[in-house]
């Protein structure tokens, strides 16, 4: 809300300006006003204000203490903090406006406990806002820190934060801000200055167990201590922080000698270096100097806004088909004329990066089957395809049926009237108006009279590209990586068929120096180090076929070497109606483990693995997937995964798998879990692309609950072409 005073201040000069204006030579181009009406600063903003600063645990907060603030929805933060040889790498994701989750990897140098000199550990935090700040009420948040696993940082807290306008130091535009924070902490945050005990004694921290289980027995138990602090932001860039910490660092200072805890007061200063980077320096516990680097980014606000070359405007047929004779349908009877039209349409599509696969031309209707190797947004691809048809087809064609095709299979049909295209391009609500007039339906079988592109099959494609393969969380070296080049080739002899392979040449890396497996299960995934001994490998070589066996059904069959560790045969069927949020699928694979050298030989381990899967599209881009079936080690169980995919393709998700393997047999971590990201290339570069960098991180890679990775899985491409995705992408149609 704009305060009334500011409004008056802004409006009055503008009115004076109106009165003062008199005939005479204006001085354009004049300098743009820097503030006040007419300046860029006064115009509406769509980007949110600078987000809250983060603490040493990567959550909004002070220094070592949390505050009650939440990040903007969807925000993603990576922080590094260091003091006294204690380093923490934190990743925080604001999953919902009131809920955030963090993952942390930390190292404590010279702890000399639990059999390690430097102690590495992983942990998860979750925070939920109980209510927002309003009136005199502060914002209040409940947090569980390091709530699962071995819990070296285990703590629970209830914290309140209230923001005030405060003195500015003069060089900023707006007023300064003061944030007061106070709360109660348990566990680590109750280890200093306790005032009471709730729920009896808290079980102590035991280092070196397998972890992975929720530590419900200790939540909100034991001593509770009040903590407090403040952050003063004199302008947009600087902030000063002070806090009274209730973390006594018992393990680090009494059981070991990592640093000396002389005082509970911490002080710090932070500077917002750029929109995304914030740096801080601190003095902690009366004896130590500390640092943080905080990077925040929001999937909704890409580094470069997507710029696509402007399309050619639709020229209404009334401009160029001015005579009655132009509107005839005789052309449809001539095969050579049809072929000519197909080639013109293919040319127009090619200019926009689309590939004409087949076209069916009737007097008043046309069905275009096209491939989209350029645009992530199915809506944008449909828009460009519609424009290409409007540009090239004879005037008598009024209905366009646009069918995006993935590996020869039609995914959906978008039906648009050409006159709507002509009428709505410049209407005030062009994106919504056109989507309202668009029909989305099942692709249906390919019409028998379809004219295929003359130049498409057989198709041969090759690429040479760099690759990286990371390995995480080895206690000796937390991060290892291999990198090199992939030489890939594919051959499509006919629609739906594909033969593909890739040879991988490692140029360097250190994954091969990692830990050997200590798993008691069949080593279905933990022999990573053995596989990494070989530098020139056949990454994959397979044949696959995709087809549509019936209405709302999609099918795939593959055979060959699917990934570096497995080869075999695989089949999959997916049921996904175009207008439904629900999809159901079944996949069955008989696979054999490949030899460590990753050429054509196999090891003596074979398994039948497969799952029944249910997929559901929730609101806000959330996608739920539940799988049940048999995993690679022969274990039975289920996987639950929740992804949030932003409409620009940025994805953040988490998953866990529970199987009939006991926590003891599974080993460290007790069960399989992890999280994943995908950063789209188009999001990074601001120009259209369909590729992205995917990353799945597991706190520990074990053998229970593992799946085989088969190329050309069905759900993702099918979903992206269906109604919900098109609706989300409708704003892109005219672009």
């Amino acid at each position: 809300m704009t305060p009334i005073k500011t409004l008056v201040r802004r409006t009055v000069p503008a009115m004076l300006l109106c009165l003062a204006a008199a005939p005479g030579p204006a001085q354009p181009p004049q300098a743009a006003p820097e503030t006040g009406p007419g300046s860029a600063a006064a115009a509406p903003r769509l980007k949110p204000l600078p987000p809250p600063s983060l603490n040493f645990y990567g959550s909004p907060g002070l220094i070592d203490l949390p505050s009650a603030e939440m990040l903007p929805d969807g925000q993603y933060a990576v922080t590094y903090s260091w003091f006294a040889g204690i380093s923490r790498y934190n990743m925080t994701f604001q999953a919902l406006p009131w809920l955030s989750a963090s993952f942390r990897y930390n190292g404590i140098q010279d702890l000399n406990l639990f059999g390690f000199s430097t102690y590495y550990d992983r942990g998860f935090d979750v925070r939920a806002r109980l209510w927002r700040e309003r009136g005199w009420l502060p914002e209040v948040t409940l947090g569980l820190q390091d709530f699962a696993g071995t819990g070296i940082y285990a703590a629970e807290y209830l914290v309140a934060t209230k923001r005030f306008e405060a003195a500015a130091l003069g060089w900023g535009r707006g007023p300064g801000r003061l944030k007061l924070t106070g709360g109660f902490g348990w566990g680590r945050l109750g280890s200093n200055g306790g005032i009471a005990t709730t729920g009896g004694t808290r079980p102590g921290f035991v280092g070196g167990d397998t972890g992975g289980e929720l530590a419900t027995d200790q939540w909100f138990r034991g001593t509770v201590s009040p903590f407090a602090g403040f952050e003063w932001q004199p302008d947009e860039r600087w902030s000063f922080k002070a806090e009274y910490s209730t973390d006594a660092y018992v393990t680090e200072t009494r059981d070991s000698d990592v640093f000396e805890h002389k005082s509970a007061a911490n002080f710090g200063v932070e500077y917002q270096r750029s929109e995304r980077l914030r740096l801080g320096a601190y003095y902690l516990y009366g004896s130590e100097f500390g640092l943080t680097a905080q990077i925040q980014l929001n999937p909704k606000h890409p580094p470069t806004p997507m710029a696509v070359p402007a399309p050619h405007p639709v020229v209404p047929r009334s401009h160029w088909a001015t005579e009655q004779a132009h509107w005839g349908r005789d052309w449809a009877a001539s095969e050579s004329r049809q072929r000519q039209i197909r080639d013109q349409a293919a040319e127009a599509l090619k200019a926009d990066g689309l590939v004409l696969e087949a076209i069916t031309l009737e007097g008043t209707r046309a069905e275009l089957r096209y491939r989209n190797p350029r645009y992530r947004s199915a809506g944008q691809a449909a828009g460009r395809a519609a424009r290409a048809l409007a540009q090239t087809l004879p005037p008598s064609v009024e209905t366009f049926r646009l069918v995006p095709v993935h590996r020869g299979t039609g995914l959906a049909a978008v039906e648009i009237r050409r006159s709507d295209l002509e009428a709505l391009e410049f209407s005030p609500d062009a994106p919504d108006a056109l989507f309202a007039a668009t029909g989305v339906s099942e692709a249906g079988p390919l019409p028998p009279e379809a004219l295929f592109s003359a130049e498409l099959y057989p198709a041969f494609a090759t690429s040479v590209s760099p690759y990286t393969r990371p390995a995480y969380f080895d206690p000796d070296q937390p991060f290892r990586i291999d990198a090199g080049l992939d030489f890939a080739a594919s051959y499509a002899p006919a629609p739906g068929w594909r033969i593909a392979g890739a040879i991988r040449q490692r140029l360097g890396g250190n994954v091969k120096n990692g830990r050997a497996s200590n798993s008691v299960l069949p080593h279905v995934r933990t022999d990573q180090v053995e596989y990494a001994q070989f530098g020139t490998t056949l990454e994959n070589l397979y044949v696959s076929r995709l087809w549509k066996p019936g209405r709302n059904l999609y099918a795939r069959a593959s055979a060959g070497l699917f990934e570096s560790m497995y080869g075999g045969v695989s089949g999959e069927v997916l049921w996904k109606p175009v207008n439904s949020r629900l999809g159901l699928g079944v996949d069955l694979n008989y696979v054999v483990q490949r030899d460590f050298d990753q050429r054509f030989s196999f090891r003596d381990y074979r398994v039948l693995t497969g799952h029944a899967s249910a997929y559901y599209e929730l609101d806000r881009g959330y996608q739920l997937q539940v799988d049940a079936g048999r995993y690679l080690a022969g274990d039975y169980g289920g996987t639950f995964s929740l992804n949030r995919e932003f409409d620009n393709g940025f994805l953040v998700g988490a998953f866990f798998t529970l199987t009939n393997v006991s926590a003891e047999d599974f080993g460290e971590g007790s069960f399989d879990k992890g999280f994943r990201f995908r950063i789209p290339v188009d999001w990074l570069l601001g120009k259209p692309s369909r590729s992205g960098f995917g990353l799945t991180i597991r706190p520990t890679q074990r053998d229970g609950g593992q799946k085989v990775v088969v190329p050309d899985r069905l759900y993702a491409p099918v979903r992206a072409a269906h109604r919900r995705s098109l609706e989300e992408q409708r704003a892109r149609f005219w672009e």
Partner: protein
Amino acid sequence: MTLIRLTAALLASALLLGGCARGPEEKPGELEVLQAVGEQISRRRKPAPPAATLTRALLDQQPQNYIEVAIENRDAKAYLTRVLERRDSHPGTIEVWRTQDNVSLAFRQGMVIATRGLGGGLLSAEVPAAEGVGGPARGGARRYTLRADGNGQRVVNMACRLHDLGPETVEIVEITRSVRHLQEYCEGAGGVVVNDYWVDSRPGRALVWQSRQWAGAETGYVRIRHLQR
């Protein structure tokens, strides 16, 4: 050290192989990023030649009319030619102007209603247009639909007052024009937008010779001049 050497080797080989993807398949993401980095470097090395000074004599040699569009927040300037003039069911004539490097702007009676190819652009707009009137015909509601939140859209509703600031003259490349200065003062969506139009003051002419208009949060203000004789 090994990591740096490795990255260098990767980068070098990939740049060497740049464009090493053939056939009707999607390009690997790593390749696209490396190519973008390569383009960025070569662009830094070879800055664009300075633009020729704009003179009336130069303009007179051109076979078609141009408009000059300057985007204030990125110090960019371009010359656009008209690719389409049409009407639809809403009042006013629509004109689409386009640069050679595929950026286009659409106007209704001289008011910006769409930008394409700029990134984070103006998807569509409702403007107070009327037949035969250059620039805004009245105050009242104005609606901008903007690209926002990734691939989504955000509607910005504003309430405008129209001020006639009276007759003025503007000089556009050696020619002085008599114009009326119209100013739209719009409030809404937590901000203020001021659009200025300098409209031909001869009777029966509705050409907006020059304007400064807001084209969305990302593009900001654009200045437009008609360079024709």
